[in-house]
């Protein structure tokens, strides 16, 4: 069980294959019968788009100008997203693996097998022998359902979600500093900031349409300070680029704040009336002079001084950050160190003054609000809080003693599979064989399972290891809400029916729950019933949705939470008067710099870092099948500085082996001056031998449990003679 089986036959049958035309080909004479307004399935900008429907198929996309976030704009993933819907790789029937190959099964057969295996596992090894691993590209209704299903349906403590690999450091930092986990401002505040500090966020490629707001700020005369080890398109376009050594953010943030303190640019009144713990933090900050910070980070001291003066002197300013500072074994400390700058200058709580994290996954925000996190209950309540547990059990009608305790994070769950504590896995819309660090260990975890069920609408690198694969639906075959990166709850609309025998994920989960004899907790008939339950369970919690209705969302183009009442608007901007800690104050947290868990040495002399490119989304399970996107960047590559390349005798396009203590892979070299000489970079969207995560270090941040994707020690080796195909299209050509 849990073995990949006939690998090549599975790949041949289920892809990824490239597909690049709307159903019926590129026809000039379309008979469009419906134009369905909805949102992009990918990143958390959640751009509005209109889907064109012809004869029950989505055949194209038109810009949607009425949605204020994107006003018609879309990145290439958004433009081509509709090509998923009738893709030949789509899973159409339940599949059961027999003799190493997936065979078509009926729903009855597949569900009965799952339920008997689940029951057997729990009878033999206890309730916690089943693990549930969920996603954040799902609607909020589904993410809520997954949390409830694990706890009330299976009674297992082991559930987590793939936002754990994404923005949990930001979430933990926000909770510690502000008492709530949500961006502080709507993005429409960005154009009013005199200065933007963008830390570890390549907004250009990961969040393309946010650039609309960033450039409005520039057009208003604002400036950008960009903090990134690479000269990304965002850094290139910025006014000041601090090209730090990966993993040194605490030192840099402390250095910037040191300048602000020494220049007398802190907001004493704000610190006195609205925050706690400044003095202790200040004592730490004072040690990080620009010279000290420069020594650790590799950023020239003058640039640190300039960044401090520019941010400190500006009347308004915002800090935006993303995975670049969060994907570290000190990710939470990094986040809190930048928040210190926000709080010390009082730049929060009004238009143009604020803070936010750039959320990677479409519903990264909504997916971490209603209880699919290992330690969380609906409404951003805590599994560890007896009052919260009682409250939710009361609403669900679940005896309190039946509600399991908090579980563990996903990397730890995968450790428990290898240790034999988790024997069965139910996994929904995620792809651990690409997305988790140290993929060789992940493979061992999957192979050690007794039984593995995967729900998705394409066969992913991970699903290949499953015993049963169930066909779910793509985003425009179902409806529900998502919450974008600014905290705006949006409505995803259904444009077409699912293909063949594919079923909505909520239907599948409900069926399993009923067959497990837990039907009384899962009486809902539609996603709307689930949303109504979220309104009730989240009421009074931090993430309060009680006043939000689907109709309101449509009418108001999204509603910001918290929104406790139907007759009052949602909350666009947080912290105008108070923070969410009981005393209404925000909290400083000062940290000394600590290096990454693994730093370069003689054997592994380079720092390896990973990240994204604009043409792919997360593990690539959806985007690596869209011909247009793949043609823009057909394979991963390793960025190497020309000085480093020269040291190893490597020229552009030559194949290189990149190795760490975990594993190695071969990649063509992209020799570019846009990276630091001590650092190499590989985009992570590919699997198997092309996976960047063969190399990364699975060490976790102790608080958020996010893995350290952004810094580990690595070596490179020239592979003689072999050259690669061009890794990026650099010449004009007719693209079809």
């Amino acid at each position: 069980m849990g073995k990949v089986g006939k690998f090549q036959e599975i790949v041949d049958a289920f892809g990824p294959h490239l597909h690049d035309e709307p159903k019926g080909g590129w026809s000039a004479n379309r008979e469009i019968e419906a134009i369905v307004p909805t949102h992009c399935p990918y990143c958390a900008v959640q751009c509005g788009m209109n889907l064109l429907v012809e004869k029950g198929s989505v055949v194209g996309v038109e810009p949607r100008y009425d949605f204020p976030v994107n006003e018609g704009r879309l990145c290439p993933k958004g433009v081509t997203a509709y090509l998923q819907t009738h893709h030949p790789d789509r899973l159409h029937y339940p599949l059961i693996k027999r003799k190493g190959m997936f065979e078509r099964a009926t729903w009855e057969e597949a569900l009965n097998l799952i339920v008997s295996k689940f029951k057997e596992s729990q009878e033999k090894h206890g309730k916690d022998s089943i693990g549930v691993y969920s996603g954040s590209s799902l609607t909020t209704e589904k993410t809520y359902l997954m949390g409830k299903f694990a706890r009330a349906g299976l009674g297992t403590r082991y559930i987590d979600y793939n936002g754990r690999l994404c923005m949990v450091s930001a979430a933990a930092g926000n909770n510690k500093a502000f008492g709530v986990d949500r961006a502080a401002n709507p993005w429409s505040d960005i154009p009013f900031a005199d200065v933007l500090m963008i830390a570890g966020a390549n907004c250009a490629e990961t969040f393309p349409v946010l650039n609309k707001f960033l450039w409005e700020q520039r057009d208003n005369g604002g400036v950008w300070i960009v903090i990134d080890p690479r000269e990304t398109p965002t850094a290139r376009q910025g006014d000041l680029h601090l090209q730090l050594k990966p993993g040194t953010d605490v030192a840099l943030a402390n250095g910037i704040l040191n300048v602000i303190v020494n220049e007398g640019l802190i907001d004493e009144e704000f610190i006195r009336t609205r925050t706690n713990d400044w003095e202790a933090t200040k004592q730490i900050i004072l040690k990080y002079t620009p010279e000290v910070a420069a020594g650790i980070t590799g950023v020239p001291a003058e640039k640190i001084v300039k960044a401090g003066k520019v941010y400190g002197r500006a009347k308004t300013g915002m800090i935006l950050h993303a995975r670049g500072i969060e994907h570290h074994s000190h990710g939470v400390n990094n986040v809190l160190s930048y928040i210190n700058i926000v709080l010390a200058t009082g730049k929060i709580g009004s238009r143009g003054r604020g803070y936010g994290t750039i959320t990677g996954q479409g519903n990264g925000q909504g997916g971490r609000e209603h209880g699919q996190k290992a330690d969380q209950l609906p409404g951003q309540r805590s599994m560890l809080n007896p009052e919260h547990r009682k409250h939710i059990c009361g609403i669900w009608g679940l005896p309190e003693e039946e509600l399991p305790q908090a579980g563990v994070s996903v990397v730890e769950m995968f450790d428990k599979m290898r240790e034999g504590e988790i024997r069965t896995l139910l996994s929904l819309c995620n792809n651990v064989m690409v997305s988790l660090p140290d993929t060789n260990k992940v493979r061992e975890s999957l192979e050690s399972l007794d039984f593995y069920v995967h729900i998705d609408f394409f066969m992913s690198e991970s699903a290949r290891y499953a015993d049963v694969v169930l066909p779910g639906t793509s985003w425009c075959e179902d409806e529900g809400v998502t919450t974008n990166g600014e905290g705006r709850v949006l409505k995803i609309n259904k444009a077409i029916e699912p293909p063949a025998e594919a079923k909505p994920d909520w239907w599948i989960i409900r069926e399993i729950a009923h067959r497990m004899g837990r039907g009384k907790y899962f009486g809902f008939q539609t996603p709307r019933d689930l949303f109504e339950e979220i309104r009730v369970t989240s009421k009074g919690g931090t993430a309060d949705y009680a006043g939000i209705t689907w109709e309101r969302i449509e009418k108001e183009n999204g509603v910001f939470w918290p929104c406790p009442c139907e007759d009052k608007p949602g909350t666009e901007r947080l912290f105008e008067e108070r923070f969410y800690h009981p005393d209404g104050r925000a909290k400083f947290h000062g940290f000394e710099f600590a290096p990454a868990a693994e730093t370069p040495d003689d054997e592994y002399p380079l720092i390896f870092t990973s990240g994204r490119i604009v043409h792919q989304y997360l593990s690539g399970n959806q985007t690596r099948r869209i011909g247009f996107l793949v043609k823009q960047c057909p394979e991963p590559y390793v960025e190497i500085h020309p000085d480093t390349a020269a040291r190893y005798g490597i020229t552009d396009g030559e194949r290189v082996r990149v190795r760490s203590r975990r594993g190695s892979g071969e990649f063509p070299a992209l020799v570019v001056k846009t990276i630091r000489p001590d650092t190499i970079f590989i985009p992570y969207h590919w699997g198997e031998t092309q996976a960047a995560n063969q190399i990364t270090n699975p060490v976790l941040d102790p608080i958020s449990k996010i893995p350290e994707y952004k810094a580990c020690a690595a070596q490179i080796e020239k592979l003689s003679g072999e050259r690669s195909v061009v890794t990026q299209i650099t010449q004009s050509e007719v693209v079809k």
Partner: protein
Amino acid sequence: MKETFFIDPQRCIGCRSCVAACRECSTHKGYSMIYVDYIDRGESTATMPTVCMHCTEPTCALVCPADAIKVNEDGVVMSALKPRCLDCRNCVNACPFGVPKYNSEMHLQMKCDMCYDRTSEGLKPMCASVCPTGALSFGTYEQIVPLRRTKPVNAHVFGNQKVETKVYLMLPTDDTEVSIGCGVFEGRVTAQNERESWMEAQVEESNKSNEF
């Protein structure tokens, strides 16, 4: 039609959303008429979108022996007319911007026609609609000038040839023409230091339109 393209290479992030969107336009059936190039990937991530500049006196049309390339009353230079196009590729070689491409499947020169099917009906071209950054935008001169700090320029000098275009390039300088060889992009590289000193003054003064 007073609306036209404004191209701001400084903002381009190389996402090729414009390229993907161009394929969605039904007149050229899945082919894209816009190109995005890295300037020099070894040096920088800078990219540049290329659309037809819709020259006032289009070289492509002037050199066409079959008179297949028409300019309509809105100043939009159309793709070659299929019955007339001779496959000679004169236009491909002559265009100073390197715009027209020869489609060997269709035996036809094809190029950006400013989405005439859309723009003549008041819609924006797909490419400029979707461009996330505003590197490619569509509107009137009067609309764009107050929104931007860069300056629209539509005169281009290629050696001895001076070309005026319906489409504008947005430049961060006071130049009134683009002179190829004088380094539009060299300017970008040297401007980094200037921008840094400019930046502090900018923030200190804070005399901006968005004050409140």
